[in-house]
């Protein structure tokens, strides 16, 4: 019998190991699986390589994971916002590694990782510092840069509705990196606002089919990250 539902976020992330590569969904706060990330802070796995578009805000969510010194390296496109404090401080001290990737290249590297494509050529970043040291090949009259797929040990993803088979739907622009990240991890862990009965999700509207997902946990009232940041909250909770 297939039942991917686990009862707590702590149980969902219990086996994340030291040195793992972890994909974390979200574009800023939209789609960021704050409760799963906090469970990972509690769990304590270290030396993680995190792949996420941003590097967290304030002292909660991804910023809390970084502040707890669990992240050795981050692969991302935009590691600062007006309210990011944790990453910039550690980066300036040389205590966290950054691999800066154009946003579309980041999405495509993850998509490729999930689709069994080891590498691809993209026109983005040609003749810029981000292409330095990378293979360039000419197709037609244009140059393209070789980029490698990203595959991960775990993915932490937020969605709006899930069923026990792991079928997922998302909400608005909180979808962002979720669907591609689900495809590219050995273990994909999803927090859903609501878990529904099998059959309730219209198969025509399912965005992530269940075989890309391994665990689903219901978080009925997920935190608004921006609200936590505005209230100057910290995780572990201050």
């Amino acid at each position: 019998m297939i039942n991917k539902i686990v009862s707590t976020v702590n149980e969902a992330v219990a086996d994340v190991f030291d040195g793992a590569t972890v994909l974390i969904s979200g574009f800023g706060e939209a789609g960021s699986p704050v409760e799963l990330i906090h469970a990972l802070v509690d769990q304590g796995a270290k030396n993680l390589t995190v792949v996420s578009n941003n590097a967290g805000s304030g002292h909660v969510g991804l910023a809390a994971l970084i502040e707890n010194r669990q992240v050795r390296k981050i692969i991302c496109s935009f590691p600062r916002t007006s309210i990011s404090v944790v990453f910039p401080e550690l980066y300036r001290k040389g205590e966290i590694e950054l691999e800066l990737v154009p946003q579309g290249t980041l999405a495509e590297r993850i998509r490729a990782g999930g689709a069994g494509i080891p590498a691809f050529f993209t026109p983005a970043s040609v003749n810029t510092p981000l292409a330095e040291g990378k293979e360039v090949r000419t197709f037609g009259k244009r140059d393209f840069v070789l980029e490698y797929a990203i595959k991960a040990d775990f993915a932490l993803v937020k969605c709006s509705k899930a069923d026990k088979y792991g079928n997922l739907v998302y909400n608005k622009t909180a979808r962002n990196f979720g669907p591609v990240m689900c495809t590219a991890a050995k273990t994909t862990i999803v927090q859903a606002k609501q878990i529904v009965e099998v059959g309730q999700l219209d198969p025509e509207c399912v965005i992530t089919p269940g075989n890309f997902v391994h665990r689903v946990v219901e978080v009925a009232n997920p935190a608004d990250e921006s609200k936590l940041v505005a209230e100057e909250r910290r995780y572990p909770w201050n």
Partner: protein
Amino acid sequence: MELSKGWNLAQMAQNVANDIPDGAYVNLGIGMPELVAGFIPEGREVIYHTENGLLGMGEVAEVGYEDPELVNAGKKYVTAIPGAAYFHHADSFAMIRGGHIDICVLGAYQISEEGDLANWSTGDEDAIPAVGGAMDLVAGVENIFVITKHCTKSGESKIVKHCTYPLTGKNVVSRIYTDLAIIDVVDKKLEVRELAPGISFEELQELTAAELYMSNYSI
């Protein structure tokens, strides 16, 4: 130079908007480019793409109606128009790289006379490097419009012979809209298409650190 010369921000945005045709799919960068949406001439239907997964972006959300799961590329709370579509990031950048977005309007630190754009880093050692989707946009969208003040706050020309800041892309800019002129990049040459009121070609050239040509199509 007198302050009264040249176009103000609204006029600059209007100049860009005038060049966006009916039916265009448009990506607006963060900051000054966002203003353009407010100036599209009546009767034209323009669909806005935001790279975080929405085609059919509407106006900024009203106070009290903000949805933290409905944001634009600048992470502002926005709305979606009737007929909008959501999609994931790989699809969004397939739209960009695959040539399905007609026009992208971006800001700039520097633009070279060959249409090179520098708009993501000033190379400042202390700055946290961040690139976002700019490199994908300039590589994938055919018409890259740049909207920017002609000079920096300290009076240096943003239009230069060669960019000294790290590039976003090479030979990518098609048209530059400044407070002083509208300039086309044609065959690696800067052709002035329109001068702002009160600005002469000679004055413009004096304020520009690259060679300018008067366009045959100038207004």
